[in-house]
C-alpha cells in the first residue's frame, strides 16, 4: 500500500500524468502486451496448429468471405490460409518473449559484469571492459549470425525446433549487454564514491551486501531507461534477423517472420499480409520507444553512451 501511495505521489507519476505522449504510449504498449499474453483467449484461430488450417483460405481478403470456403477473416488470411489477426497475436507473443528475454539476459549479464568491474576495479575491471570492447567489435547482427551458426552445430537434432527462439534471445542479448555493463559501471563508480557506501563498510557489510543491497538499487534508473529502449531494439532486431533467415520458424512465426513473409506480397496486391503485422510492430516498437524516451527525460540521468 505504502509503495503504491509512494508511486502515485512520486515526481515520475506526476510527470507521466502531464505527458500525453507517455500516457498514449503506455496505453498502446500495455494493450498490445496484454493482447499478446491473452492471445489464446482472444484469437479466433490457433495459427500454430497446422491441422486446423485450410490452405484454400489462402489470401482471403480482410472481411470478405473466401470464394472457395466461405470463411471470413478480420484482417484477411495469409499465404497458408492462416488468420492474419490470430497470427499477429501469437506472433507478438513470440516477439515479446524474445524481446523481454533478450533484454533480461543482457541486463543480468550487464549488471553483474558492470557492478563487478566497478566495485572490484583494477585488473578485473580492465579485463571485463576489454571483453566489452571485443564484444563491440562484432556488430549485433554478426553476433547473432555467429551464435546461430554455432548453436546449430551444437544442438541435437530433436531440439532444433525450440532452438531458434533461444538462439535469438542469446544472440540479441549478447550483442546488447555491453551497454548495460557500461552504464551500470559508470553509475556504480559514481555511487561507490558516495559516503553511504563507506558507511556500509563501517557497519560491517560484506562486498556482496554492499553491491546488491546498496549500490544496485541506486543504479537502476538508467538501467530502466536502457532496458525500455533495448526492448524495442530487440524486437526490431528479431525482425531484422528473420530477414536474414535466422529468425523464428515460419510454422510458428514471430512478428518479424510475418513481415519477412509479408514483404513478398507488397507488389502483388495482398497488402494485408504485410500491412497489419508491420503496423503492429510499428505501434509496439514506437510506443515502447516513446515510453523509454519519456522515461529518460523524466528520470534525467546522464547516460554514458
Amino acid at each position: 500500500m505504502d509503495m503504491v501511495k509512494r508511486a502515485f505521489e512520486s515526481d515520475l507519476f506526476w510527470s507521466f500524468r502531464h505527458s500525453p505522449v507517455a500516457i498514449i504510449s503506455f496505453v498502446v504498449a500495455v494493450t498490445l502486451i496484454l493482447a499478446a499474453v491473452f492471445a489464446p483467449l482472444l484469437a479466433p484461430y490457433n495459427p500454430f496448429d497446422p491441422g486446423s488450417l485450410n490452405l484454400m483460405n489462402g489470401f482471403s481478403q480482410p472481411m470478405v468471405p473466401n470464394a472457395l470456403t466461405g470463411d471470413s477473416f478480420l484482417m484477411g488470411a495469409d499465404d497458408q490460409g492462416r488468420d492474419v489477426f490470430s497470427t499477429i497475436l501469437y506472433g507478438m507473443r513470440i516477439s515479446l518473449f524474445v524481446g523481454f528475454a533478450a533484454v533480461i539476459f543482457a541486463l543480468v549479464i550487464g549488471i553483474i559484469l558492470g557492478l563487478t568491474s566497478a566495485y572490484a576495479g583494477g585488473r578485473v575491471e580492465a579485463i571485463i571492459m576489454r571483453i566489452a570492447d571485443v564484444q563491440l567489435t562484432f556488430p549485433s547482427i554478426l553476433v547473432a549470425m555467429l551464435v546461430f551458426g554455432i548453436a546449430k552445430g551444437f544442438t541435437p537434432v530433436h531440439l532444433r525446433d525450440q532452438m531458434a527462439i533461444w538462439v535469438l534471445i542469446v544472440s540479441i542479448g549478447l550483442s546488447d549487454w555491453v551497454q548495460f555493463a557500461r552504464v551500470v559501471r559508470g553509475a556504480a563508480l559514481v555511487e561507490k564514491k558516495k559516503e553511504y557506501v563507506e558507511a556500509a563498510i563501517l557497519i560491517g557489510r560484506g562486498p556482496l551486501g554492499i553491491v546488491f543491497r546498496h549500490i544496485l538499487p541506486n543504479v537502476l534508473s538508467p538501467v530502466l531507461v536502457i532496458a525500455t529502449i533495448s526492448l524495442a531494439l530487440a524486437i526490431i532486431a528479431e525482425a531484422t534477423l528473420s530477414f536474414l533467415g535466422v529468425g523464428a520458424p515460419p510454422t510458428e512465426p514471430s512478428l518479424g517472420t510475418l513481415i519477412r513473409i509479408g514483404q513478398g506480397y507488397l507488389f502483388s496486391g495482398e497488402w494485408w499480409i504485410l500491412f497489419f503485422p508491420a503496423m503492429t510492430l510499428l505501434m509496439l516498437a514506437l510506443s515502447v520507444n516513446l515510453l523509454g524516451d519519456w522515461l529518460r527525460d523524466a528520470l534525467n540521468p546522464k547516460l554514458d553512451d
Partner: protein
Amino acid sequence: MALLDIKNMRVEFPGRHGVFTSVNDVSLYVNEGEILGLVGESGAGKSTIGNAVMGLLQAPGRMSEGEVRLNGERIDQLSEIDMRSIRGKRIGMIFQDPMTSLNPIETIEFQLVETILAHLDVSMSEARKRAVELLEQVGIPEASVRIKQYPHQFSGGMRQRVVIALALCVEPELIIADEPTTALDVTIQAQILQLIKDMCKSRKLGVILVTHDMGVIAETADRVAVMYRGRLIELGDTSQIMNAPKEAYTQSLIAAVPPSNKKIDRFPKVAIAESDGSALQDFDLQSHWLGRGSAYETSSGSLLEVRSLRKQFLIKGAIRPSNRKYLDAIKDISFDVKAGETFGLVGESGSGKSTVARVITGIYPATGGEMEFDGHDLINTKNAKEKQQVRQDIQMVFQDPYSSLNGRMKIGAIVAEPMFVNKLAENGKERREIVADLLELVGLGKDAARKYPHEFSGGQRQRISIARALATRPRFLICDEPTSALDVSIQAQILNLLKDLQDQLKLTLLFISHDLPVIRQMCDRVGVMRFGDLVEVSETEALFEHPQHSYTQTLIGRMPRFAK
C-alpha cells in the same frame, strides 16, 4: 542616486506544488565603491536576487513584481538582446565554483578575448593585450604565458582569479559575486576577498557579495542585507548588524556563529530555524540498550595510538614498479587520542585529514605504520572476529548529508542495518524499538523511520547519520566535517547534539574540520595537518592563542573573524 536600485522585487517559480515565491518584496540598493553583503541561509533567496538582476532566472522562474534600476535606468523589462549588452558589460557576475565556471576545452585567452570582443569595439590584438593586463591585475603570475593554458592547468584559487578577470574584463559598474569563496580554502579565501575589495575600491565598483558566511561578511562588506525565506529581514551597516542586530532572526543567526576568539559551552538556540526536535530525553543509560555497550573501563590512557602512519595512493599504474607514481596522502604521522576527549584535526583541502579518518576506520588500508585501538592492533590483525569487533567500536559521521544516506532505503532500515549485520538485537521487534529510541535520541522522533532520506533536510539527515553510527554502540566516533555542508543555525544544533551525546554516552571523538572556529568550540586537543604532515599538536586554547608552527600562524591569521 544609487548604482543599483531594487524596489519591491518578487520572484516566483511555478511548479508541481503550486507557485513558490523565492523572493518576496525585497528592496535594496548598492552605491558605487560599496560592497553590499547579502547574507542568509540556504533557501533564503539571496542568489535568486542576483540572477533576477541579471535576467538569468532559470525557467519557469520569473520576476513578477518590482523593478530594478541601474543608474536610474530600468533594466528588468529589457529585451533579451538589450539585456545581453548589460550582462558582462555593465554588470559582471562571479560564480561559486571556479572548477566548473570555465569552459574546459577553450583556453583562458579565448574566453577572455571572446568576452572583450563581444562588448568592445577593439581589434583582436588589442583584446589580447587587454586580456593579459587583466590577468596581471587579478594577480596571476606570468600572465602572458598562462593565458595560453586551459582551465584545468590552474589551481582553484587561480581559477577564481580568472573568473574575476572575466567578470571585470569590460569594466562593469556592478559585480554580483555569488558565494565567490565558498569552494576555496581559508588561506585562498582571504586572498580572493582582498582582491574583490581592492577592485571595488580602486575601480569604484558596486559589489553585491552573496554569501552564507557571516565571517566573510564581517571582513568584507560595507553594508549587510539579511535574508530569510525570501524576505529581507534587516538591512544596515556591517558593524551595526554584527554588533547590534535589531531583528530576532539576525540575532540568533549571529549567535549561532561559532566565535573564533573564545570557547563557549553550548550554542544558543536559534529561534526561527527549523525545529530542533526535543533536546535529549533523559534515558536511563544503565538499563538502555545503548548503555550496555559502554560497560568498558574508561581509562585515562590513550584509546587510539597512531604511530608513523603512512598512506600512499597509486595515481599512475605501470607494469614496472619503478614507473608507478604515488601520491603521499599521509606522510608519517603520529598522535594519540585519549579516552573521552575530543581530538580535532584541522587542515585545508588536500591536507590528508579525511584520509586519516578512513585509514583509522579501515576503509583504506594503511601503507605503513602502527595503529592500536584499546590494545587491539588495527593494522596487523588478521582475526576477522576481532577486526569486526573493533570496527563496531569505531564509527563515523560523514560530511555530505546527501550522499551519506542510501536514498533507496527507508530511515528505519538505514538505522537498523548495523544491528542487523552485527546481530546486535534479538529480533526485528527489538530492532525496531531500538531504532525508535535512537531516532528520539537524535531529536527526530520515531515516525521518521517510515520515511525516505529525500524527505529530510540536511540537518535532519546528519541526525540520521549520527543515529546510524550509534547503532553499533561505538566507543569512538569520527566526525569528518559533519557540519561543513550545513547552514550555521543547523550547524549549531548538530554540534550541540554531538556534545550532548559525548557527555551521555562517554564517547571519544575525532573531529575533523577545516573550520577553525568550529574546532575551537568542539575540541580538547587539536592537530594541524598540511600536505599529509601533522605539523603541530597542542591543547586547543594554547594552539589558538600561541600557535607555534608558521603554518598554524598563517592559518589562524587568515581566519575570518568578526567581533561581536
